[in-house]
């Protein structure tokens, strides 16, 4: 029997997540205990961690889209072959990238540190994904639900921003450091915005399925939120580069755009009580539990994002661990929670696997361990960042002294990373068992 391609993507995504978290734990220990695993230095471990967790986000979002389109959106896939080609390009390119990192062969930019030639198959695989998506959904009659728009936007803008992230290959962009850095961060900011479109679209999709109610995906409010998210994808990136001496209007405009996120924050607070009531009612549903958790992390990270987007605060927090708290809080607390919700929804749907009492207990306890240690992890980063920012501004201590002063809090951070990894193992291993028992059939 031909297996669902969506679940094969999810299996690879979960393996990437666990491997990426393993390298993340190692890198955190290297950060606080210099000399730890010196033969395999931080300079190799960090890109392994980053690339694998980014692969988790893309693979799980793509796997979901390949499954949801024909099964729930009333859309027949244009081609059943293209997703398989897409998968194998991803596997082969991914392995080559990992080999490059292990051998210390770099040459790219932050987050895409591999030799740039390996970006070519990534472009090709994305074109195949785009062709399949648009050739499929254009046949759908009637008004699209907002998640189809979000997925479409994510696909198009990943392509655009990934191209933009490679403009440094052209001398015009590379040979002016300020232009180079500005565009690099323009591309990265929008790239995160584009994967957020894929992830948030998935969140809305799962919500409508769990509730059995499509109206939320057609509401004016949903489209307004989509529009705000899209505008921030396009223009909000420059709050990353307030201190880069680019033109003032770039920074002022980014400041204004970042403040529009207050509207989203306001909406979350407005709905807070209502969502809490709903959460109580549906908390027994595994996917819903992860969505509720993501909602909580959206609130915390969006509040942090708005605060650090104020230039007078950003000047203290920029380049400190507060930025890491924002990035990791968003990718782990929001994106991963949503994608785990989608994975569990999809696994149950495809495999019909019933978790044993022991497995269900492992997932439940793992969920709470994961959230608890994520909170410790996040708070440690905030405290370390605030202390570092204050000491840098005071300008009395050398960098090494500043790092020595914040090391105790970073040790707690590193060990909370181990707790986070254990919680995740308890959640993901039963899910992987369900997938492999299906694939073996």
């Amino acid at each position, binding site marked *: 029997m031909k297996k669902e391609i969506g679940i094969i993507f999810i299996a690879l995504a979960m393996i990437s997540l666990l491997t990426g978290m393993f390298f993340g734990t190692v890198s955190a220990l290297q950060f606080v205990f210099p000399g730890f695993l010196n033969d395999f230095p931080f300079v190799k471990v960090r890109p392994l961690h980053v690339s694998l967790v980014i692969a988790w986000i893309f693979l799980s979002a793509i796997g979901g889209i390949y499954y949801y389109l024909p099964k729930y959106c009333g859309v027949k896939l244009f081609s059943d072959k293209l997703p398989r080609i897409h998968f194998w390009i991803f596997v082969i390119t991914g392995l080559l990238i990992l080999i490059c990192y292990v051998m210390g062969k770099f040459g790219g930019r932050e987050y895409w540190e591999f030799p740039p030639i390996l970006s070519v198959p990534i472009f090709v695989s994305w074109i195949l994904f785009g062709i399949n998506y648009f050739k499929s959904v254009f046949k759908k009659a009637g008004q699209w639900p907002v998640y189809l728009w979000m997925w479409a936007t994510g696909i198009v803008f990943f392509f655009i921003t990934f191209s933009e992230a490679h403009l440094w290959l052209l001398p015009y962009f590379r040979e002016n450091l300020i232009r180079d*850095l500005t565009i690099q961060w323009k591309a990265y900011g929008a790239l995160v915005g584009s994967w957020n479109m894929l992830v948030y679209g998935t969140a809305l999709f799962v919500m409508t399925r769990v509730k059995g109610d499509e109206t939320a995906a057609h509401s004016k409010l949903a489209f307004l939120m989509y529009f705000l998210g899209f505008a921030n994808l396009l223009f909000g990136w420059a709050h990353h580069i307030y201190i*880069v001496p680019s033109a003032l209007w770039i920074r002022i405009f980014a400041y204004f755009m970042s403040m529009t996120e207050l509207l989203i924050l306001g909406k979350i607070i407005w709905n807070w009580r209502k969502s809490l009531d709903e959460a109580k009612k549906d908390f027994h549903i595994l996917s819903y539990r992860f969505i509720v958790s993501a909602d909580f992390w959206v609130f915390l990270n969006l509040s942090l994002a708005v605060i650090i987007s104020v230039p007078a605060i950003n000047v203290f927090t920029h380049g400190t661990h507060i930025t890491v708290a924002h990035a990791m809080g968003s990718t782990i607390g929001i994106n991963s929670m949503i994608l785990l919700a989608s994975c569990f929804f999809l696994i149950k749907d495809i495999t019909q696997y019933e978790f044993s009492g022991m497995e269900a207990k492992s997932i439940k306890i793992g969920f709470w361990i994961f959230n608890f240690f994520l909170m410790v992890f996040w708070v440690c980063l905030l405290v370390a960042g605030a202390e570092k920012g204050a000491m840098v501004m005071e300008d009395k201590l050398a960098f090494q002294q500043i790092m020595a002063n914040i090391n105790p809090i970073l040790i707690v951070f590193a060990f909370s990373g181990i707790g986070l990894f254990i919680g995740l193992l308890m959640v993901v291993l039963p899910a992987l068992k369900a997938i492999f028992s299906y694939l073996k059939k």
Partner: protein
Amino acid sequence: MLVVFNILYSSLVYTIGTDNTKGESFYTENAKRGQLLYQKYNCTACHQLYGLGGYMGPDLTNVMAKGEPYTKVFLQYGTQRMPNFHMQEDEINSLIAFLKYADKTGTSPIKHFDVNRDGTITPK
């Protein structure tokens, strides 16, 4: 409409928005080579330029203000945290040339500034 506006906006960012010519004369052939070596050795995993990059080591934007010998020692021997990459002499010189150029483009982090009422800052 949003997409059209974005195309216009991006064009301005690519051109006049980032037309900073400070330090241009320091962007020599050697500095160009150093810029690529910065990528080859994945310096960004641990170091920042204008606060962008990793957190293990210090921001390198103005490291050359501490003098060439200071920076050279780190590149030649590494530290407990920084590996010794066993770089050739000419590679070290190219990296130094690139960092000299970076130093001339501006200041990071900004430590002296006035805070305006709208939340923006004006560097002193």
